[in-house]
């Protein structure tokens, strides 16, 4: 039986995905209430341990989203983040955490509709594995 309510922690970059999420909200796009957002200055701030700590504290899913590669406000933060998130994602099975509960992606400030899709799709996926 898939769970109906899930808790998802989103680590969002202030300059893009946070604004994109905001836009989706203002435009009243349909989104699940599952997401709790932590606003960060840049995905370069996302220590993989933030993700692991969120799981440890009981998150069902963790979503990391920032500016598209090439568009980071600080030029290179998301290039570092991409390497870290990729290693982390591939490590999850060995840690005993289903990698389907983790997702990282890039959503810009103008992509409100894409943001709503990302959250809806990820929530659906998390519900299936929890």
């Amino acid at each position, binding site marked *: 039986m898939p769970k109906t309510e899930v808790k998802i922690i989103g680590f969002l970059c202030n300059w893009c995905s946070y604004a994109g999420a905001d836009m989706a909200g203002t435009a009243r796009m349909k989104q699940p209430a599952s997401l709790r957002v932590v606003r960060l200055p840049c995905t370069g701030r996302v220590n993989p*341990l933030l993700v692991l700590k969120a799981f*440890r504290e009981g998150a069902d899913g963790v979503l990391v989203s920032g500016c598209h590669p090439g568009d980071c406000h600080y030029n290179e933060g998301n290039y570092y983040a991409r390497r870290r998130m990729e*290693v982390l994602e591939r490590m999850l099975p060995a840690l*005993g955490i289903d990698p389907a509960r983790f997702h990282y992606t*890039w959503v810009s400030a103008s992509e409100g509709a894409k943001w709503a899709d990302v959250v809806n799709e990820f929530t659906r996926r998390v519900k299936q594995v929890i």
Partner: protein
Amino acid sequence: MSMNDLIATIKKVLEEVDVVLGWTRSPAAGVAVPARFHTPDEADGAIFDSTCTHNLAVHLPRLKNSKVGIVAKGCDARSIVQLIVEGEVSRDRIRVIGVPCPGVIDVKRAWRCFGFGKKIEDAGGRVHMEGRSMPREEILLHKCHQCQDQEPVIMDLAAGDVKSVTPPPPPDKTGIRERFAAMSIAERREFWREQFSRCIRCYACREACPLCFCRDACSMQTREPHWTGGQVNAIESEMAQQVRTSHLAGRCTGCEECERACPVGIPLMLLLEEQNRIVEELFAYRAGMSLEDKTPLLTYDVNRDGGWR
């Protein structure tokens, strides 16, 4: 390699350094223990055999103000390279004495089989103690099977022919690695809960790791940032080890010292070997192979990294 070669090489190196890190035999335990040689007389006690398991590179960051010689197996040499790459050790302060390494054994297991405190000898492919013996392949550390790094990647002088050694064959028994690989994700969750419920938070894993040099700023213990509490329970201890594992991403050379040091036998290498495999898969990188390398998680390559989302 004869012990005389080794002793002579150490004496030669002592002419230009303050201290040489090596091994001597403990009369009480019968096996090699780390030793510091300051004088030629002290160096007469130097040995190298398959009980020289310790990775002496761990001492280098603590000896920043001296000129240091160090006896190094191939795997130890990788730790030394990584320490230099990370700026913890300066190349011109150290002299590396490479030794031809046949593989080293799990001394704790030898003691469990033979009993503690008698001289362990390695001859003719078997490990002997007081008339009893067992095949050395059965008791090697995991890293030594099919070792790719027997010839030290960094070396100023060799004690013996470091090119002459051949890697020990693959392990023949299925062990914890195979069992772990066959587990489901949920079983692994349960497995780690169980394993970390035995952790006593002694931090021996960190102290033995040449690359865990943060000492009093180690975030397995700090309040700020407060990744994990100091309570000794499975949840906190597992988080503490996740902190350590993630800090070793792209830096761990797979020397197995953390696991060897763990007094309760938590199979930490299951995590580190997997992480090392992932780093190699993504970045074609093995830590500590070249002084020109850049640690992959401290850099990026816009063109090559494009394949990920």
